[in-house]
């Protein structure tokens, strides 16, 4: 039914099977939209946020998807600015994932602010002393960059590309993409960093507070560094999952290996910096504020030393070492385990820096306050996942997201029996009129 829209030389499932898949994910999306409308219509009393938890599940999800979407800016920076041309085989997918992650972050924020119609206040009545203002500015601008990077992919749809204006627009956008990629890297550096800076400047929260370099706490640099390190892991992780679902090889192994190697060395250097930061914080910064390390990890039902070990050792040191070792990286299982641990590690880091910060008692009369999100919060957090799956499904079906797919998965032409070939001559002629080869049709 929609074969004329599908890229040349690739095979897709039937239209009805595709619509069935969309419908199934659409139900989850509808559940999230219902919860979102509840939050907008009835207000934030639909959540379990309170005076302790002004930041909760949504802000964790926000920070996590922004870190995981860091693969787009890092891959773009490497390809367009540092000339790692091999990454052209994966850049489209990295941009798509970045676009989904950042649009999801903005959607979550639109729910979290409670009054989305006043979102523009942050630009018009900006508080220029807030790191969150910087985040809002850079996030919005970088989303514009990702949109600019995603548009040429849409224009490369087989039918749209036939129109000379759209074809030229796509070509010209590709030609000058380096300007936007460099701008995107600049914007990403600051908004990723400022998200970490928000935690690091809170001198009233000894669990998060860090020493500074000028106005920037160490968490500023650690957040940018971790996004550049772990974002590509998420891109590789999703490539592998998409390959598993489609049963095809979609990206050249050389591109995957290069990205994994770059991510591995970024993780390796990041985790050394993170360990040094943690040691200095545990032995100097926190004691200077009247706390011991044990105060942050005991006398509560959930946050033990295990979370520190899980974040830094199991999901930090281990995947970093795995990815910098060529033999492990080149092993399909080794690579998948490493990037999976990386994805969990950065999500855990953002959880700790958002939720554990809120949970730790500060005053002597304070107690550990636990937080369990309401179903509306959970549904609206799953909403972007469903939206992302739908966008990947549509993009994969109709756009050349994986430019090497046809080459890596050649369609073997079926050789019909001689007698049937003669009788089916008229059908073949009809197919040729539409400009389709039998395999594509």
């Amino acid at each position, binding site marked *: 039914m929609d074969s004329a829209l599908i890229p040349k030389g690739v095979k897709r499932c039937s239209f009805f099977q595709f619509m069935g898949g969309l419908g199934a994910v659409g139900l989850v999306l509808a559940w999230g939209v219902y919860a979102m409308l509840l939050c907008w219509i009835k207000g934030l009393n639909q959540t379990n946020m309170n005076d302790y938890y002004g930041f909760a599940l949504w802000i964790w999800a926000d920070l996590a998807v922004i870190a995981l979407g860091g693969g787009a800016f890092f891959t773009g920076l490497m390809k367009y600015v540092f000339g790692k041309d091999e990454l052209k085989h994966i850049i489209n997918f990295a941009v798509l994932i970045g676009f989904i992650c950042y649009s999801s972050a903005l959607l979550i924020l639109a729910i979290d602010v409670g009054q989305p119609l006043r979102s523009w206040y942050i630009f018009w009545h900006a508080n220029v002393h807030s790191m969150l203002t910087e985040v809002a500015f850079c996030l919005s601008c970088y989303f514009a960059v990702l949109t600019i990077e995603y548009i040429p992919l849409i224009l490369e749809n087989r039918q749209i590309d036939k129109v000379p*204006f759209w074809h030229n627009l796509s070509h010209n956008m590709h030609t000058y993409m380096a300007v936007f990629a460099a701008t995107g890297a600049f914007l990403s550096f600051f908004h990723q960093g400022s998200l970490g800076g928000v935690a690091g400047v809170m001198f009233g929260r000894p669990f998060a507070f860090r020493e500074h370099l000028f106005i920037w706490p160490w968490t500023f640099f650690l957040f940018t560094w971790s996004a550049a390190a772990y974002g590509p892991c998420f891109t590789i992780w999703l490539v592998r999952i998409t390959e598993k679902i489609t049963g095809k090889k979609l990206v050249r192994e050389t591109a995957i290996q290069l990205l994994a190697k770059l991510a591995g060395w970024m993780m390796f250097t990041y985790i050394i910096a993170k360990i040094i930061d943690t040691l200095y914080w545990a032995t100097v910064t926190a004691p200077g504020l009247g706390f011991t390390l044990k105060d942050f990890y005991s006398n509560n039902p959930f946050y033990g030393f295990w979370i520190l070990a899980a974040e830094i050792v199991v999901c930090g040191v281990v995947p970093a070492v795995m990815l910098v070792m060529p033999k492990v990286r080149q092993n399909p299982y080794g690579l998948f385990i490493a990037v999976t641990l990386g994805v969990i590690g950065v999500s855990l880091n953002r959880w700790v820096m958002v939720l554990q910060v809120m949970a730790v008692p500060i005053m002597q009369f304070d107690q550990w306050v636990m937080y369990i999100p309401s179903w509306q919060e959970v549904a609206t957090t799953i909403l972007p996942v469903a939206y992302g799956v739908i966008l990947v499904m549509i993009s994969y079906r109709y756009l050349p997201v994986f430019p090497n797919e046809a080459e890596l998965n050649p369609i073997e032409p079926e050789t019909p029996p001689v007698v049937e070939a003669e009788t089916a001559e008229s059908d073949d002629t009809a197919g040729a009129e539409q400009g389709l080869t039998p395999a594509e049709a």
Partner: protein
Amino acid sequence: MFPFNFEWIWDASHLIFMGGLWYALSILGAGMTFIVIKTIIDTAQGKGGHHH
């Protein structure tokens, strides 16, 4: 926020924050304007008839 808004103050914070925003938006806006104009000219000259 612009300098003609009542909240505007001529200090480093406003200049750096708002200047940075305008700078980024200017690059994106100018870049896309250039590309669209070039595309219109290219199309008018008959380019893009074949596919690369």
